[in-house]
């Protein structure tokens, strides 16, 4: 019913390329989130799907029809906007029924559908109000009701929660997820918040500089990022990245090195590499017994501690020969560590990612390199 297909979509604005070589297939009923930093082209991508922008080249198919040059009204899509965009001169009822009235539905059919939609978003009894009499959350619910009432092929959501306060945002997040599962309508959701992307989506499409980096289920993006950009973008706080090179049977970062046999990988002695370790995969040397494959201990000094409650973020400095490397790790807040302490830490070698000189992933674990080499992921897999 509602498959969306983008083939080699490119959008240029005067001298800026906003989106380039975008190939993306969204299955029927799937919830895909486009995520990336500001100005990465995620909203432009959504706009080309909605028809509010025509791509410079490439094709867009919705539900099997080529809609590349069709105006929004002929695409059978519905959209929820960041600035909510309710028509202020219409009541809630008129807002929700706007699209149906334009399509000359029967009065009874309109009433039935509006009632149904209002029930789904829990806004009963508000139909005669005007949008400015509603709270932010209620307004966004009206926006959602306006979208679902038309029973579209595809839902497009452009940062619908960005203008709501933090608490409401989390509540609405769950609500949108529940709604999407209930209705089973293909949804494309744009956000710059990786946490929103992780929690809501079936798959995440990570975009940077107008190009698709990776499109995979949330945990795969987290566990097997295809390049350093995805590795840093997904997960909070971000992954530690260390520049180093292959030195014999080890990856040398300068201040420390990690044993690794590169046989079976494309890496050869002397290659530049980037090591990626998530803060949650660094452990105190005392706890090395808890993990299966600890690395050799690295001596560091504690620079800054940031307690956030359930854990404490520790900014560490590893120093040798006057050069320092910064590390970020998360520690159990019960540990008695204070700033300026010198401690020893180990990495879980199962969870160390290695990226080549271009930033593309080589392996996602340093344990058993021959097995790991078999499922090397490189860019373009998506």
């Amino acid at each position, binding site marked *: 019913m509602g498959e969306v297909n983008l083939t080699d979509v490119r959008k240029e604005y005067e001298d800026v390329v906003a989106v380039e070589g975008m190939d993306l297939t969204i299955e029927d009923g799937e919830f895909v989130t486009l995520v990336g930093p500001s100005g990465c082209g995620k909203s432009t991508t959504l706009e080309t799907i909605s028809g509010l922008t025509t791509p410079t080249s490439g094709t867009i198919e919705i539900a099997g029809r080529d809609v590349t040059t069709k*105006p*929004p*009204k002929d695409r059978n899509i519905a959209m929820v906007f960041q600035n909510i*965009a309710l028509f*202020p*001169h219409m009541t809630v009822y008129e807002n929700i029924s*706007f699209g149906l009235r334009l399509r000359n539905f029967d009065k009874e059919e309109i009433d039935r559908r509006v009632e149904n939609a209002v029930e789904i978003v829990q806004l009963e009894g508000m139909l005669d109000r005007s949008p*400015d009499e509603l709270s932010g959350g209620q307004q966004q619910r009206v926006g959602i009701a306006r979208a679902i009432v038309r029973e579209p092929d595809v839902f497009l959501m452009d940062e619908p929660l960005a203008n709501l306060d933090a608490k409401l945002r989390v509540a609405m997040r769950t609500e949108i997820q529940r709604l999407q599962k209930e209705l089973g309508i293909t949804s494309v959701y744009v956000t710059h918040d990786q946490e929103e992307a992780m929690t809501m989506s079936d798959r995440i499409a990570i975009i940077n500089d107008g190009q698709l980096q990776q499109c995979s289920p949330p945990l795969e993006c987290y566990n097997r990022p295809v390049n350093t950009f995805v590795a840093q973008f997904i997960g909070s706080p971000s992954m530690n990245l260390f520049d180093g090179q292959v030195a014999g049977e080890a990856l040398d970062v300068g201040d420390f090195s990690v044993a690794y046999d590169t046989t079976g990988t494309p890496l050869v002695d002397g290659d530049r590499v980037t090591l990626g370790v998530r803060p949650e995969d660094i452990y105190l040397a005392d706890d090395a017994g808890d993990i299966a494959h600890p690395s050799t201990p690295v001596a560091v000094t504690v620079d800054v501690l940031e307690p956030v409650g359930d854990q404490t973020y520790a900014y560490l400095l590893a120093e040798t020969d006057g050069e320092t490397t910064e590390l970020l790790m998360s520690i159990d807040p019960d540990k008695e560590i204070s700033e300026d302490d010198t401690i020893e830490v180990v990495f879980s070698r199962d969870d160390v990612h290695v990226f080549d000189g271009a930033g593309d992933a080589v392996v996602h674990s340093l344990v058993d390199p021959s097995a790991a080499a078999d499922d090397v992921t490189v860019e373009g897999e998506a």
Partner: protein
Amino acid sequence: MSEQQYSGLTGRIVKYAIHNSTDVYRLGFWVGLVSFIMITLFPFYWLLVLAVTPDNQLYQMGIVPENFNVGVFLTVVQEYPLHHYIFNSILIATITVIVCITLGSLAGYAFGRVDFPGKGPLLLLLLVISYFPGIAFLIPLFELLTGSLSILGTPTPDLYNTPWGMVFPFTMLSLPITIFILTTFYSQIPDGLEDAARVEGTTRLGALFRVIMPLSAPGVVTAAIIVFIGVYREFFFSFIMTDGSPENWAVLVYGILNFQQQHTQMYNMMAAASLIGIIPIAVLVILAQEHIVRGLTAGGLKE
């Protein structure tokens, strides 16, 4: 500073003024207000005095009427086709307003909401044209609209004694200001609302008429009023494009002028007709004012 400086009447007044500045400000306010009201309303008062003064006493007329001839208002309405002139004026003004708002909306949408090359220069050109006095176009437009010219071998249509002979030049003269007002208002409507309308199923044009225009109601009404009043009181084209008979679409100002004949000048009649002619405009402004207020309070855009 010694007390010496405040002696004499002037000195005492100055002293009072310095120590009671609030009173001085209040006095200034009232002097200003009363002068303004007098300047604004005196012409109306004078018209009234002129109208009710019997025509044989017009030449010694003072500031206060000596005799009341209220019948003049009845005479004007009953013996002259004043209603016909007013009807013509209202009709021509209405047509002009409709054409101006329609064309102005399209142009205002383009200038206010779409980026296209040459937008700046084009707006500037519009501004330049709008500053030309209408009278500068009088002769060429008269030629054009009375069938005296031929363009590429086709004679131009003869619009003399038709409403279109006036609607065309009025539209031309009023469009620039309409476009400027509507451009300003339309550009303030958030893009998201237009996008929402388009996704919901309108075309760009549909979004303009269903969402952007209703939300710009105060601007649209203001533009309409300005155009209507401008046309209603316009003289040059009204005078030149008809022969002055109400059957031939002569408008109110021509009708009033008709009281001034070769040997008689019925100033009291002219004054009475002028006062009656003001009524439709007054009613319109009062009605529209309500609409403007409603338009402003119904807004509440969320951005």
